[in-house]
């Protein structure tokens, strides 16, 4: 047993940290906190990371990576989110899948650009009638020889308005007996004619999108995996080993709050003896998020990932972070309800924004209920029916 990072991992951590200390500026942070997507400063940062082969450390060097493991990926994610940089970087996530499922042409066409930070991807799974039940997607891709013609709609594709490509799950066989066997994964240039992106806003002010496809032509060369084999592509993406979660931005906010409580407003904790206990509890949970995440990565690197490592990390991380938001709001009392721009708003209302955004965390990228279903069935082997 060994809880230490290797010298290579420590060196990578130091390198990423020092780089972000310098280059993840207030302007980048402002874009992250705006919740409006990757703006120009974020894109510039991503390209700078790309130029240093920092974006996809797991990939082979020939594709712009460093040939490191999932540990390096988790270290990178922690540093990037701690510095409140742009996240998630779905291009890198899709690249991980292409490494496993893509053709040589596709890897050569996309991976270097993704690794350089020049190609960003938007996830294109969800539809109005296909949320947790992603196999129910209806966006139709009709086989037309050397291309597909696409018609349909996606929703909550949050990255679509600032990405170059759409990682699109489509239906190629509407009459498949089992619906998940009629799916095909495509990569679509978002500048293709026929695509309309319409903004949606969450109650926290986060920008997401509806994306409409009307007779959009996509070359077959952009099909990932087999026609009607899209489900296998998703499964490798989800279960092919993964980096675990990290406390990232929550840890930064925790430290900000500690400074506020110890230096700026010591009377708050002095008058409320429950606060030190609550903060200690949160500190323990943030630490757990990190070690659970690193453990998932370490075991993935050893080829020993279990089907439940990712989901455990996911639910523990997001549910603890939500709890942290609730505790912060209670600590701030009536002042916690003041939004940015209001007189008396503490810490620029950043905690209120986090609180407003927090219900989303246990819904997106696999709801808490679905994560538990995966743990129960694939992890514990509990029967489905």
């Amino acid at each position: 047993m060994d809880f230490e990072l290797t010298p290579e991992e420590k060196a990578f951590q130091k390198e990423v940290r020092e780089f972000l200390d310098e280059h993840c500026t207030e302007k980048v942070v402002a874009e992250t906190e705006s919740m409006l997507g990757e703006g120009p400063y974020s894109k510039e940062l991503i390209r700078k990371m790309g130029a240093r082969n920092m974006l996809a450390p797991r990939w082979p060097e020939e594709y712009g990576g460093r040939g490191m493991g999932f540990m390096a990926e988790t270290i990178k994610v922690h540093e990037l989110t701690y510095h409140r940089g742009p996240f998630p970087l779905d291009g890198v996530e899709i690249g991980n899948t292409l490494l496993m499922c893509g053709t040589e042409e596709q890897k050569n066409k996309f991976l270097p650009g993704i690794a350089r930070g020049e190609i960003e991807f938007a996830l294109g799974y969800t539809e109005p009638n296909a949320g947790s039940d992603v196999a129910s997607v209806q966006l139709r891709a009709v086989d037309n020889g050397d291309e597909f013609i696409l018609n349909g709609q996606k929703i909550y594709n949050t990255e679509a308005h600032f990405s170059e490509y759409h990682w699109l799950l489509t239906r190629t066989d509407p009459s498949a007996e089992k619906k998940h066997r009629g799916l095909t994964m495509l990569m679509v240039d978002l500048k293709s004619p026929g695509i309309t992106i319409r903004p949606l806003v969450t109650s926290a002010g986060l920008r997401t999108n509806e994306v409409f496809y009307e007779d959009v032509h996509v070359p077959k060369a952009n099909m990932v995996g087999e026609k009607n084999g899209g489900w296998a592509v998703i499964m490798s993406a989800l279960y092919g080993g993964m980096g675990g979660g990290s406390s990232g931005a929550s840890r930064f906010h925790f430290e900000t709050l500690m400074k506020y409580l110890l230096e700026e407003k010591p009377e708050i904790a002095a008058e409320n003896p429950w606060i030190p206990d609550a903060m200690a509890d949160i500190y323990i949970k943030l630490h757990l998020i990190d070690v659970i995440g690193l453990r998932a990565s370490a075991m993935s690197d050893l080829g020993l990932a279990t089907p439940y490592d990712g989901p455990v990390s996911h639910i523990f991380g997001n549910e603890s972070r939500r709890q942290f938001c609730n505790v912060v709001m209670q600590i701030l009392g009536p002042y916690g309800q003041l939004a940015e721009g209001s007189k008396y708003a503490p810490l620029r209302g950043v905690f209120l924004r986090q609180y407003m955004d927090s219900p989303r965390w246990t819904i997106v990228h696999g709801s808490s209920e679905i994560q538990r279903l995966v743990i129960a069935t694939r992890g514990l082997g509990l029967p489905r029916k």
Partner: protein
Amino acid sequence: MDVRLSEEQEILRKSARDFLSDKCPRTLVREMEQDEKGYSPQLWKEIADLGWMGLAFPEEYGGGGMSFLDLAILLEEMGRVCFPGPFFSTVILGGLPILDAGSDTQKKKYLPDIISGKAIFTLALTEASGKYDAASVKAKATPDGSNYVINGIKLFVPDGNVADYFLCVARTDDKAKKAEDGITVFIVDAKTSGISTTVLKTIARDKQCEVVFKDVKVPKENILGELNRGWDVIQKTIERAAIAKCCESVGGMQAVLDMTVPYVKERVQFDVPIGVFQAIQHHCVNMLVDVESSRVIAYEAAWKLSNGLPYSREAAMAKAWVSDAYQRVVALGTQSHGGVSIIEDHDMPLYFRRAKAAEIAFGDARSHRKTVARELGFKVA
């Protein structure tokens, strides 16, 4: 024991629900969140004409002669639709304290205008600490001939931007041994020189304000109750407001449950309504447990107050419970709806925001559990 409403109360509830579903649609709620005043003067007049402001006031002032319990039923219906505007402030924070402690002259002067909808009232109590305790009252009122002069900054004053009158709580004797002694409540005309109001930007987009009192002259006859005995009035006002807020919250929680159960019966994923899944069923059940427990504890407190029985402990227990329960219900309602309910245009965010605001108003769960702990015999600071 009988928890049923009387026939009269059922009629009140039904008529209020019908009126509000017609006159207080979501579009109005959202419009008022962005509106400078935060309420519709036309709707205000309509509810005054219906007798809502005057419901729990004696007929001699133009009121309906009904009880606090009847008012609680009305508040629940308002909570159900996120009713915007200064009704709660005017009636609970202004009118009822004047009814409790006002002189005959004061009652004759102010209550008819409250009841007719002519005057909007609110309570200017909390200060920098954000707490609802006597020790936090630092605003000062010093005697000056036939007046008192008030100086201080009040925060989180609900509807301070539209109030015609403030019940301003100030310290008139800072040498008193206990914090509760030496506090006086003044009825202050909002047009008095020296008052400036700033609307704070809050999560619920309700109009909570900073109200600055700078050398504000108030005639001595505007003291509500007795000089230096104002905390007696305020203690009762806060407890009653806490109960009222609980009843309003029960309406909101019920609305969330009422939107979630039909949704999970209709929303199909994996070829079945998601209400088939045990996880979702348990969410709905947990919501129901919170709604029903909140309803009974809130109404028990309201009934006790309404019937002249001791109610302080029940008020604390109710507010402690409901403050957290409302948020749990919204969290589970959101989780059951999934992505659709985190979009701003969905109804759920309206309740999410208001649940947080309701938790904070008149003391959060922890502050009320402290009260209960003291009642249990613990020495609590």
